[in-house]
């Protein structure tokens, strides 16, 4: 589906996107894919040594999920700007206590259109984004700008 500039109103919500519960294996996959091998994201011993109770997701992994929310709605070649601020840490689900820990590891990204304008000869929209876990804790806020036909 192609999103048209004229069909969009300020205040429109973008479709919500929800991840699966993030596992430690997802974080290892992301580390290898991105090249970010900060041990904070896969080494429990290191995480505890710096005062955390367990490993945490890469902020950039949450940005990746937010990017997936964006490009599930618009083509990624329409993107002109994508900016995020990381708000809190995300712990992965514990496989031995799945039910009690999954909500902290499920990320839902929502957003809405906040502006429509012309710039550089293009019709552009600006959308605000927020990512929260299923406990309601905010992980990331930000925005993107996209050029639409």
């Amino acid at each position, binding site marked *: 589906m192609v999103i048209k500039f004229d069909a969009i109103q300020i205040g429109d919500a973008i479709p919500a996107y929800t991840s699966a519960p993030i596992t430690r294996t*997802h974080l290892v996959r*992301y580390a290898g894919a991105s090249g*970010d*091998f900060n041990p904070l994201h896969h080494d429990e011993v290191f995480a505890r040594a710096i005062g955390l109770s367990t490993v945490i997701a890469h902020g950039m992994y949450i940005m990746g999920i937010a990017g997936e929310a964006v490009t599930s709605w618009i083509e990624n070649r329409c993107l002109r700007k994508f900016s995020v601020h990381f708000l809190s840490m995300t712990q992965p689900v514990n496989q031995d206590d799945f039910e009690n820990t999954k909500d902290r590891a499920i990320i839902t990204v929502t957003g809405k259109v906040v502006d429509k304008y012309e710039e550089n000869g293009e019709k552009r929209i600006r959308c605000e984004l927020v990512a929260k876990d299923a406990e309601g804790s905010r992980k990331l806020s930000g925005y993107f700008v996209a050029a639409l036909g």
Partner: protein
Amino acid sequence: MADRSKLGLEFPLYSMPVEKIKIAEFIAAVEQKEDTRHIKDIYRDVDAAKKAGYENIPMPPSFPTHFVFWTGGGLQEIVNAVGADLSKLLHSDEEYEYYAPICAGDVITRKMKVVDMYERGKKERKGWYAQVTVLETQLINQRGELVLKARSTFVER
């Protein structure tokens, strides 16, 4: 603690090809797929990508990070160069400006610089004080075109 004298530091230039398999691996992680055959078509099938208007398989929006971590010494080189303490380092902001598509088959050169270093909050107020380091990265393709600018903010607590 980050070394304030490193403000303005320019990292060496590094180049790398944009690999189709690396895009698939990255998007499989982000889409939480066990199998790269299950990722979105434009990220695994050149024909689907061309049909969607790309020259080749495109990069996902947050993929620029991989040009920083997979070139030079990656994270460790950055940490060493600015004198940061890895055990206190957190990523606080990331911003991309996209000027042209980056696709599989391109060769990307990254040009990175320390553009800002400052202190936030007061040292006496624990939990509020942080040293901030801002890196700007330009990605330039094989035709010499600036295709992306990234701004990455890190804090040390």
